[in-house]
């Protein structure tokens, strides 16, 4: 079973699914970085002919582009314009489509708080992108919107209220389509300040699936990089029992395997 199929099965989806079932919250605990799972979701949509919108507060476009090439998809798309992806650079506080002119300069350097205060403009540009794609391909393709680095943004000064409002708007835009489009967001649970506790309590309710990556209780291992716990909510807000697997990060993807069956374990 491939890594993508294993992740689908863990989340209660069909093995060959290329759409998510509702919003997904990816959490990192401790020193583990669970942002690697975001790339799997982007891969799922891009390989299935869908589109991806990446909003990152911690990495640049090159990071996602180069990892995408290693994982077998291309954010640049086969030809341009139009491409099948949009990148929103929260790290440098700008909402720039990847082929637009760079506006950054010392006098125009905005703060991240200003960026999120004007979150309506960011959501509008994302809506425009999706509408343009619909015009091009007839609107038959789903879109995944990935938000990476929520904890970084909150640590850098974005208020929890603004961040939650931004995510709610995004989820509304995505789920209104009803074609399997989904919102995926990632945060480091341990790095949130006290004022960001409301995010920790609200976000799991916003998502239908919560993936939590933790370090191994037994310490670091070369063969097993961490424990992935999947918690799903049923339609009636009933929380299903969590399912745990071990994972190992590779250059081209992530390997999931049942607990105790890792190569380095006896």
């Amino acid at each position, binding site marked *: 079973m491939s890594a993508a199929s294993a992740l689908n099965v863990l989340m209660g989806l069909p093995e060959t699914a290329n759409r998510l079932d509702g919003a997904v919250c990816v959490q990192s605990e401790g020193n583990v970085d669970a942002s690697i799972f975001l790339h799997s979701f982007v891969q799922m949509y891009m390989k299935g002919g869908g589109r991806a919108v990446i909003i990152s507060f911690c990495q*640049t476009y090159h*990071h996602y582009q180069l990892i995408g090439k290693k994982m077998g998809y291309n954010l640049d798309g086969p030809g341009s314009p139009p491409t099948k992806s949009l990148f929103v650079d929260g790290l*440098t506080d700008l909402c720039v489509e990847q082929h637009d002119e760079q506006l950054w300069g010392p006098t125009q350097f905005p703060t991240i*708080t200003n960026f999120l205060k004007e979150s309506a403009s960011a959501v509008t540009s994302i809506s425009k992108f999706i509408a343009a794609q619909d015009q091009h391909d007839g609107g038959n393709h789903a879109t995944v919107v990935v938000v990476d680095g929520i*904890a970084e943004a909150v*640590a850098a*000064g974005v208020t929890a209220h603004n961040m939650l409002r931004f995510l709610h708007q995004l989820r509304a835009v995505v789920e209104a389509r009803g074609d399997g489009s989904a919102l995926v967001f990632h945060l480091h649970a341990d790095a949130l300040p006290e004022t960001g506790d409301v995010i920790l309590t609200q976000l799991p309710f916003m998502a239908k699936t919560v993936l939590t990556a933790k370090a191994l209780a037994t310490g670091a291992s070369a063969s097993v990089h961490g424990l992935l716990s999947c918690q799903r909510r049923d339609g009636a807000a009933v929380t299903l029992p969590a399912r745990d697997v071990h994972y190992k*990060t*590779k250059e081209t993807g992530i390997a999931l395997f049942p607990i105790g069956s890792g190569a380095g374990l006896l």
Partner: protein
Amino acid sequence: MSSFRRAGAARQARKPPPATKPSLANGQLLTSTGMDAIDHLLGGGVAVGSVFLIEAQAKSPYADVVLKYFLSQGICHNHHVTLMSADTDPSKFLKSCPRSVDTLNIPESASVEKPEKDMKIAWRYKNLPKVSSVVGTASRTTFSTKFCHTFNLSQQVEEKDLSNDTIHTADLRISKSGNTFADAMQLILEAVEPFRMVPQPGPLVSAAVHRIGVHRLGSSAWDLGATDKDDDGGGGYNDDQYSVEERVQAACAFLHQLRGIARRSCAVVFVTVPSSLLSSSPHHRHRIHLLADAVVRMEGFAGTSNEHHPALKEYHGFFKVLRMPQLNSLVAATPDTADLVFKLKKKQFVIEKFHLPPELSDMPSRPQEDAPVTPSSSSSSSSSSSSSSQDRRRRVKERGAASQQQQQKRHPGSMCQPNPTKNNPYDF
């Protein structure tokens, strides 16, 4: 005129900056930190466009030494160097940076290792590979000396090297706006303005690397100024005294902007942060670590219980790698070992793998499992250390006789006479 062009012309335009090399793992552009050992730990060097953070203890100078190596490396390669500090005079700090040994005209014969004499006893050991505790010595080749210079801490960098246009210092001790963080950010933006890059697909390539050193970010000398309350109910800063939470918040915002600037300007940022800023809460530490690409902690032994530990007497502290850079890759480089120690010598700063010293005493390190440990024997053993040798011999004889009698009771026909001292770890 022909429309044909040499294929090498385009390649020449994309030539990486001096003293940089692409990573073998992910193609990320790397430059040297000035120390072979740290380069080796980071997977070849520090990534251009990244933020390297060092947790510094209050009274130990070790983080400053690593920062000096980083700055000296930039000075040697004519990189653009900017140093800012609110604690000390950055000009004096820069003048105390170590001088490169490669520019001291040392004869080559001095650096060449002398051939070892032939071994007559245990001559086969000669064929075994040499084991060195020093991290990163394997990469000290002719290329490595170009990529990473060797420095002598006992000699300072020359004045003429510091008079270049590429060297800048920012004294933040007197804040212009009342907010040291804002002043520092403004200075950094002005400094990197010529190096800002237009985002293009492909690897990060620029004409020059900019090295930015930030000394003791967020220490008590960094003024937060008075800010208005946020419209959304965010907390404002107190004019008189700032809490640790406020300092951490300001440092996080600063580091986040710094990371964005580094990514877009072909800069490498070295930041030292006082551990007092991070030790108050694990959340503070997590937040600061999250906003840097690589984090190391230097735990000096001075003033701790390890200061007089016999196994650590050769070293000055532990070197802990807390976060590895993960740029353009899913997998971060993994250090060979997590047990690292450092020592500050007169001429150089050395990072080594930590080995426990060999056990040279005759005493076994732990009692053997089959040792007959009885209350009487343990009490005698505890008293034997303080008694005379005659008493000790007498007790051994008595115990031997007693054990002989027990053995004969268990195995009446046995001719084997067990040695009473053989299995007792407390007798010698």
